[in-house]
């Protein structure tokens, strides 16, 4: 549905994209994850035909974004990062002009308007000027404009940015309802969003795709180290040496301690499971365990691992 072939984009001397290639199947919901300035927006702008790539090519719905730009634009619904809207128009007018500029038929326009107003929950503000809307409603108007012509492909640039948690959940919910019949490519820097609403995630860093997979596979792929967090009551020094000597534990560090209890983080060798041994040791020494938890690596850790440059890490 969407294919990119070694896309490169240079702005003056800065290289925003360095040979990005991928292929997205129909019906997939793909999240483009990356820190600010990684090249997410540039990539999306190229796919919508707004910016020409410096090198490489992209095909959307099997049409070239440069030479068949008009046909590509007919098939795409696009929500730009800045969500530009005509402030002086009322919500209804803004949607109506979008329909007209897209060349929609009159009878088709009416039902489409009714549909998006319902889906995006704009019923209470249709008559209001966009200038007077809250950020959440503006975002919904932008989304309504993007889905008005019922496009096969949705490209959403940070659809939930600047929204409060409730509004974010609403927009995510909306994307979930849309994804049943559409291919969606959305960018975000909110990890939980990618984790919850995307089938597939690209992590993009400094203009390159550094990871590609389902949120789960990315987590397990990069889960080199896993940890066990233990909180118990006992003398710090002996607890630390005893637990550190268990087979499979590579390192012990104190996370936190109070006068009565101590929290330790045990780094484990791959495949090791020391939960029972920890219990046995604690029991035989009379140290009550207050908390025992395995820490699995999240998409957040993968993201940090991949996108933090060495200097920042150190």
């Amino acid at each position: 549905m969407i294919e990119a072939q070694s896309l490169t984009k240079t702005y003056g001397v800065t290289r925003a994209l360095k040979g990005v290639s991928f292929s997205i199947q129909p019906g997939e919901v793909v999240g483009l994850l990356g820190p600010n300035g990684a090249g997410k927006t540039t990539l999306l702008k190229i796919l919508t035909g707004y910016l020409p790539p410096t090198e490489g090519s992209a095909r959307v719905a099997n049409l070239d974004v440069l030479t068949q730009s008009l046909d590509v634009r007919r098939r795409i619904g696009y929500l730009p990062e800045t969500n530009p809207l005509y402030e002086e128009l009322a919500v209804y007018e803004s949607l109506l002009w979008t329909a007209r500029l897209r060349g929609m038929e009159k009878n088709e326009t009416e039902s489409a308007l009714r549909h998006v107003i319902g889906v995006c929950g704009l019923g209470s503000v249709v008559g209001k000027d966009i200038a007077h809307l809250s950020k959440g409603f503006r975002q919904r108007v932008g989304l309504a404009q993007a889905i008005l012509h019922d496009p096969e492909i949705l490209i959403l640039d940070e659809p939930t940015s600047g929204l409060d948690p409730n509004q974010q959940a609403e927009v995510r919910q909306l994307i979930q309802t849309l994804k049943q019949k559409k291919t969606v490519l959305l960018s975000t820097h909110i990890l939980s969003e990618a984790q919850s609403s995307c089938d597939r995630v690209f992590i993009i860093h400094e203009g390159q795709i550094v990871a590609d997979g389902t949120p789960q596979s990315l987590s397990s792929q990069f889960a080199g180290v896993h940890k066990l967090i233990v909180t118990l009551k006992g003398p710090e020094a002996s607890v630390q040496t005893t637990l550190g000597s268990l087979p499979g534990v590579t390192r012990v560090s104190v996370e936190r301690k109070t006068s009565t209890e101590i929290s330790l983080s045990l780094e484990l060798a791959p495949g090791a499971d020391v939960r029972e041994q920890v219990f046995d040791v604690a029991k035989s020494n009379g140290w009550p365990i207050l908390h025992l938890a395995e820490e699995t690596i999240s998409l957040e850790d993968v993201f940090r691992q991949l996108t933090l440059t060495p200097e920042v890490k150190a």
Partner: protein
Amino acid sequence: MTLRRHPIVVLAHKELSTFLNTPATYVIFVLFLVLMGWFYASPLFSIGQSSLDTFLKPLPLILTFLIPALTMRSFAEEFKGGTMEYLSTLPLRDYEIVIGKYVAVMGLLIILLAFTLAYPLTLLLVGRPDPGQLIGGYIAAFSLGALFAAIGLWASSLTRNQVVAFIIGFFVCFILYLVDRAADFMPGILSETLRWASVNTHYDAFSRGVLDSRDVLYWASGIVFFLMAALSVVHSKRWK
């Protein structure tokens, strides 16, 4: 596709309705009509001629700043608000965007000039003006406005700042209005070139009721030139 649904017509319609919903448009209209009314009517009875000269003579100078004031927001506002990205990702070609906006300004110009029809009407009541001269005068005024509008649109495409767009537009219009004053001091061929380049030469010919194809060519090529310039600016903004 029917003409009503052609992207240029739809965009022109949208732009025109935006113009008519903007208070600034009415401020410019009122300013224009007050200025023109005063210029036209105050000497009318002292010179005792039933002609539109007192309206047509000061018109170019007034339009050098009123037209750029109308067009200054056309593109600058779209660039500033980011809505150019919205327009450019709709299935619209760049030239359809430029022409759609231009047609809207033409609509505004026609409305503006329609208000001044009161002047020839009063002439018809009190005297016997030459109808050829009246019609020629309006064609001249419209041609001049059309050229200035193309210049204003181009100026607006250069920047995201409306004030800068206005100043550039006014400056270029004003130069075209002034150059023939310099012609007297220039030698032969240069003098003729300057005279040819000036809007006054062609405006005066039209407003006398003389419709020469060379003048038509001047207006048409000027309009096409500045619209093409605007188009290439709009186009090139994406290739940077």
